[in-house]
C-alpha cells in the first residue's frame, strides 16, 4: 500500500512542478497569486500523504499551520493601504 501512496505523492509533486512552470510563464501578478494558491493546496496534500507514508503525526500540525498562515499571506498581498495603491 505504501508503494501506491508514494506513487500518488510522486504524481502530486509532478503537478507541483508543472504548476510552478505555469506560474513562471505568467506575467500578471494575480495569475501568480492563483498559482501560489494551487501550490499551497498541493503542498498540504503532499504533507498529508507523507504523514501517512512516513507515520509522522507531526506533519499534520505542519499542514494546519500552513493552511492557517496561507490566509494571512493572501490577505497581506491583496490588501490595499489607506491612501495609496495596494
Amino acid at each position: 500500500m505504501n508503494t501506491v501512496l508514494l506513487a500518488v505523492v510522486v504524481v502530486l509533486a509532478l503537478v507541483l512542478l508543472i504548476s510552478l512552470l505555469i506560474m513562471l510563464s505568467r506575467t500578471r501578478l494575480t495569475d501568480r497569486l492563483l498559482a501560489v494558491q494551487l501550490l499551497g493546496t498541493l503542498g498540504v496534500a503532499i504533507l498529508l500523504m507523507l504523514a501517512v507514508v512516513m507515520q509522522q503525526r507531526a506533519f499534520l500540525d505542519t499542514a494546519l499551520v500552513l493552511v492557517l498562515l496561507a490566509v494571512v499571506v493572501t490577505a497581506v498581498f491583496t490588501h490595499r493601504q489607506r491612501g495609496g495603491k495596494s
Partner: protein
Amino acid sequence: MILDALSVLLLLLGLFFFVSGLLGLWRFPDTFARLHALTKADNLGLGLVMTGLLFQVPDVLWAIKFILVWLLALVASAVNAHLIAVFLHRQQEGHDESA
C-alpha cells in the same frame, strides 16, 4: 483489502481533480475563470485525497486531525478566493494599475 481499493480509488479521483485544476489554470482564458477552476477543483481534490487517506490512518485521532485540516483548508480557500476576486475586481475597475 476492500478498504485499500476504496482508498486507492479516492486518491486517484483526487489526483484527477488536482490535474483538472492545473489544466484550468493553463487553459481558461481569463483570470476570474481560472480562479473558479482552482477554488472548486482543488478543494474537491484535497477532500478526496483526505477521504482516501482516512482508510489508512492508524487511529481515530489522526482521522479527526485530517478532517480538521480539510475544514480549515475549505475556509482558507473560500477566503483566499474572495480576497483575490476583490483584488482582481479592483484592478479591472482601474483603481489600481499595479498589475
